[in-house]
């Protein structure tokens, strides 16, 4: 089967408008979550990771004079524009394009015309902006969308539909989703603390990201990082609560490892979903234990980005790529003391470590789970 490389990427987040800036802020254990006092999003101050509108407008003006785009569209178009400008050999018109988003331009439901609230409007916007011959496909699969979109991109390449695929992910921190998570009493009153005893729920965030997947090794300019295994499985248990036994996640991990041809003790690092809700983190700890991975260093990046929904697993996979290249691990921000019933090895401090293989997982509403094995070519 063809190898599928993660060749290049970009992240637009409160931690910066390039992957490098994002990594630099992770090295400083800088969080994008802060107290937000923005009446457009919420009537009271809350903790979340929002992209500064002025900063986004300034960055946007460098790529386009057209101000007729929504915030999310600007974030996504900016991310892809940067990916393209930094990779002159990438011809997006020859690529498959998979867009991952859960709620798209959901803020447009507030107005009288809700045309842009239809998710397909995003694929049209991206198609027109980059003058693509074909319409990108949108994947909307709850909180696993970004990771599943990478898996789908990989599958499309391995099935020889395309040689290259660009995966684009993005979601907003909106009143719509915030009010929903508040109604579930799932929102933390302080920056979220994944896997920590003192965790009280999620912090939401917003971000966009893009990644170039290719089967052509000539496109690889840094170290060769490939997605060597992927799988997704439903819990078949509950639509809004994770399985108590971590069933779907466990199945996903087992299958992804099998496809990659590796055992659980060959994984050097797990970049988990880690939303910091009690049930999610507990379920993940159980699934990792069932898979025999309790001693593998693990973190959640939600303490830096908040939960960025359709962008989250894509961003976390991109960061994983750079952790593999740089042989470094970042502290699971917010973590103080283990707060799950099964033992896991949460990363407390940034450190350097020789890394070959990373497991990325995500789980979401609807009982969906995804696992990806991302690995470095050992020369």
């Amino acid at each position, binding site marked *: *089967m063809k190898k599928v490389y993660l060749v290049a990427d970009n992240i637009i987040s409160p931690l910066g408008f390039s992957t490098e800036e994002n990594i630099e802020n992770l090295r400083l254990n800088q969080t994008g979550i802060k107290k937000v006092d923005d009446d457009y999003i919420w*009537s009271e101050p809350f903790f979340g990771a929002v992209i500064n509108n002025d900063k986004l407008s300034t960055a946007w003006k460098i790529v386009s004079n057209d101000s007729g785009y929504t915030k999310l569209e600007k974030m996504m178009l900016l991310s892809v524009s940067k990916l393209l400008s930094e990779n002159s050999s990438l011809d997006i018109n020859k690529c498959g394009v998979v867009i991952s988003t*859960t*709620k*798209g331009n*959901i803020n447009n*439901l*507030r107005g009288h015309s*809700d045309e842009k*609230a*239809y*998710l*397909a409007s995003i*694929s*049209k916007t991206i198609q027109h902006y980059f003058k693509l011959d074909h*319409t990108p*496909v*949108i*994947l*909307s*699969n*709850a909180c696993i969308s970004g990771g*599943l979109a990478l898996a*789908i991109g990989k*599958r*499309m390449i*391995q*099935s020889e*539909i395309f040689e290259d695929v660009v995966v684009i992910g993005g979601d907003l921190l909106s*009143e*719509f989703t915030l*009010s*929903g*998570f*508040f*109604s*579930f009493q799932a929102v933390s009153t302080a920056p979220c603390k994944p896997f920590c005893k003192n965790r009280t729920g999620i912090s939401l965030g917003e971000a966009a990201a893009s990644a170039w997947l290719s089967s052509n090794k000539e496109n690889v300019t840094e170290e060769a990082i490939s997605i060597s295994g992927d*799988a*997704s*499985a*439903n*819990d*078949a*248990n*509950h*639509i*809004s609560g994770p399985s108590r036994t971590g*069933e*779907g996640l466990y*199945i996903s991990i087992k*299958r992804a490892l099998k496809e990659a041809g590796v055992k659980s003790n060959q994984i050097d690092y797990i970049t988990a979903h880690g939303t910091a809700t009690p049930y999610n983190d507990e379920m993940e700890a159980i699934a990792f234990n069932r898979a025999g991975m309790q001693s593998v260093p693990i973190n959640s990046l939600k303490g830096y980005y908040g939960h960025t929904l359709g962008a989250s697993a894509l961003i976390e996979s991109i960061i994983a790529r750079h952790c593999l290249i740089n042989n470094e691990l970042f502290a699971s921000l917010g973590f103080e003391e283990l707060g799950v019933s099964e033992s896991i090895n949460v990363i407390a401090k940034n450190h350097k470590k020789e890394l070959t293989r990373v497991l990325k997982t995500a789980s*979401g*509403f*609807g*009982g*969906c789970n995804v696992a990806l094995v991302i690995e470095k070519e050992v020369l």
Partner: protein
Amino acid sequence: MIKEKYYISDYCAIRDKKVFKNGDELYIDSESDNLKDFAKGVYKFLELKYPKFHKMDELCKLGFLASEVLFRDREKIDQDTALVLSNRSSSLDTDRKHQTSIMDREDFYPSPAVFVYTLPNIIMGEISIRNKMKSENAFFVTESFDADFMSKYSEILMNTGKASDVICGWVDLDNDKYDVFLAFLSKKGKKELTKEELNNLYNQ
């Protein structure tokens, strides 16, 4: 990678107050004047006993009922039967309800029971729970039913051994207009899986 021939072994559609299976009319409702009542009528016709059905939003009810029609007369559903669904309007029908509940800050009443349905993939969660399917799920949003992409992606899942069979289709609801089409794809059947055939059956 093994490339086999795949077939469309069963298919069903729910449209315009009618339910079809394999092209035949299974149920007609001439009385109900809204989707909720129509869905309840189909539920009764199918003699289902599944109290969770009544908690679902209308989009899920449609997808769920179609899956029940599709699985009727089938002894066992393989746990590895993947769900590959798509639509145009995502979960907008319920999104609008949630939006209405937060429109007025003085009269603010978001409900978790509504919010959970503001994701289109919840349909697949409901079908998975009902049939104990611990399989691959993917929900795509496209302007119209894309038989080419949907058949290709379904074939990928079966070719790579990620799924034994695939339920592939279209479950759309927008402003009371609905259109549902599901096809059971497997290694057995009379109609060979091609994008043309899938499109023909969708357009029947």
